[in-house]
């Protein structure tokens, strides 16, 4: 008897670790994990994202001195081209290019993280409210998103940032959140509308569950997937947006070290033959944005069974 129960216990154990195997009774997220772990793009992009996050929170691991420290930059080194010792060369201000790039990572990534957190909170709350309650709530929220969609993203951001006399991480993120939340609202609303019609929601309501309980327990977990995908891609595009705004002169200002400013400097000097001033910052921006976008793409493929 004990043998049988042990065996059945063992077999349930095997079942619960199903996601790693190819069993047919995997959960949705087990399925997603299985899909992701098989994809080489997932591994490449998540390693890149991990390194980028490490660089932005612990830059001293990669470059010991910040370019903003006293004595870190020597004007005598200004625009020195790459050599074997210093494969990245020096910036226009005579700072080490590698450490400027490393210490600049956090500036862009922090804005992107703050913006993503803000847009996800606003988007999920308003999208769920619009999709779940419908009626007047839905009409009001949908019309407000229409209005925000009428304002082209970059142009809107430029107007508000141009009025701020000082621009820092908080003001840039605030403006990006204000202009960016609506796409998440639309996606969340559509997703909640689809979930609302599922049988388990009716079942929960028949059992007497309150609106808030159903939203929290059933609706959110079943309709959050497209938001996760969009937020991952958003992280990448907000990094690009911050760099664009900084490049245009309405983002970070000197002496902050940031990628957009480095490209701006490099752009002015590229005609004089200092191409490394432009190529390295551009490469950092492209690789970072690409890492987040690829991660989002892989997540989308794994979460959307239609594409299989």
């Amino acid at each position, binding site marked *: 008897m004990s043998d049988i129960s042990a065996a059945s216990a063992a077999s349930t154990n095997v079942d619960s670790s199903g996601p790693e195997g190819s069993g047919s009774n995997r959960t949705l997220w087990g399925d997603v994990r299985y899909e992701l772990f098989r994809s080489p793009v997932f591994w490449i992009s998540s390693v890149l994202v991990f390194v980028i996050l490490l660089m932005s929170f612990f830059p001293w691991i990669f470059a010991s001195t910040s370019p903003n420290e006293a004595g870190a930059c020597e004007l005598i080194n200004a625009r020195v081209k790459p050599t074997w010792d210093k494969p990245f060369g020096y910036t226009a201000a005579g700072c080490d290019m590698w450490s400027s790039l490393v210490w600049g990572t956090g500036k862009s990534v922090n804005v992107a993280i703050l913006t993503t957190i803000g847009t996800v909170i606003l988007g999920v709350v308003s999208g769920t409210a619009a999709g779940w309650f419908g009626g007047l709530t839905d009409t009001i929220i949908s019309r407000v998103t229409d209005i925000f969609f*009428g304002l*082209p993203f970059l*142009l809107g951001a430029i*107007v508000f940032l*141009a009025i701020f*006399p000082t621009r820092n991480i908080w003001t840039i993120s605030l403006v990006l959140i204000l202009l960016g939340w609506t796409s998440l609202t639309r996606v969340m609303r559509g997703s909640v509308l689809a979930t609302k019609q599922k049988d388990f929601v009716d079942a929960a309501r028949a059992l007497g569950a309150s609106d808030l309980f159903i939203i929290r327990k059933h609706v959110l977990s079943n309709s959050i997937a497209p938001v996760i995908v969009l937020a991952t891609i958003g992280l990448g595009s907000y990094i690009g947006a911050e760099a*664009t705004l900084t490049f245009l002169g309405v983002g970070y200002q000197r002496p902050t070290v940031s990628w957009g400013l480095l490209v701006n400097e490099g752009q002015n000097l590229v005609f004089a033959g200092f191409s490394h001033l432009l190529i390295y910052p551009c490469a950092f921006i492209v690789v970072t944005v690409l890492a987040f976008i690829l991660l989002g793409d892989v997540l989308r493929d794994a979460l959307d069974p239609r594409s299989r």
Partner: protein
Amino acid sequence: MGRYVARRLIQFIPVILGTLFLLHILTTVTIQVVGDPVRALFGENAPPAEIIQQLQVQYGLDDPCLQQTGNPCFGLFVDRLGQYMQGDFGTNYRGRSVSELFLERVGITLRMQFIALAFEIVVGIFIGVLAGLRKDKFIDNLVRITTSVLIAVPVFVAGSLAVLFIGLKIGLPLRESEWAPEWLGQMFQVGYNPEYPWLSLFLPGIVLGSFSLAAIARLTRTSLIENLRSDYVRTARAKGLTTRRVVAIHTLRNSLIPVVTYIGIDLGLLLGGSLVTEGIFNVPGIGLLTFQAIQSNDTPVILGVVTVLTIVFLISSLLVDLLYAALDPRIRYE
């Protein structure tokens, strides 16, 4: 169709008023919280109060409600709407009217937008169809990888790199060489040349359209793949139609519907992007006007130009929506 058009036009009025009000309320609140841009212009060496007062009157910033934090300034908004109706979008710090500056430069920007749109639509759809018809083959993987990379390159990075690698390394030798025809060198120009009003906008136009090219190619690919699996395609094949007819007439027309929607959104992206490309390539259009206004802190110009561009964007997306209904009967009868 008539009812759809009427409903769409009626919906348009609150959206355009709402967007203009959004622009108004956000700038007003910002001015109320951080202070007046005229004062910020001078910094510590502020001129006498009368001069500031006079400048504030000139730029419409003298309204007392701009000092009351939290006041939505409805009166000011109505005044501004009245001015917009008469074509008055303010003046720059040198006293020239924004609408005059705008009209002077709009031709160049429109030409560049046209090149970008034509490039992204033609090449994007072509690449997307190619990839969609050969799913998971070499060409499909190539398209997927290149479009991912293209999407990850912000316009200012693409522009800066294009100036370096194409404008300088390819265009300059072409323009200086004996053998190359003049027009070929002008196509890879690093700046605007008024003698070649279309050709010298070729490179900036392509840079501007590169992001949307990738998006259009991907949209076409996914929707073509989805539609090729549908029942009506199987029926068409069973009837014995040629593959060419099934793809080009039956499938492609339906697959292009999401692409048309995207082009409506894309007009806004192109307006923002033209600011960056015109700044980099020194194209004297509306983008460069805004770009220079940002550098010299000329807030009235930025606000005026963005207002005009927002109106342009809203009207053109309305037109795209109407076109969309002509393409897809399902939308008309919704």
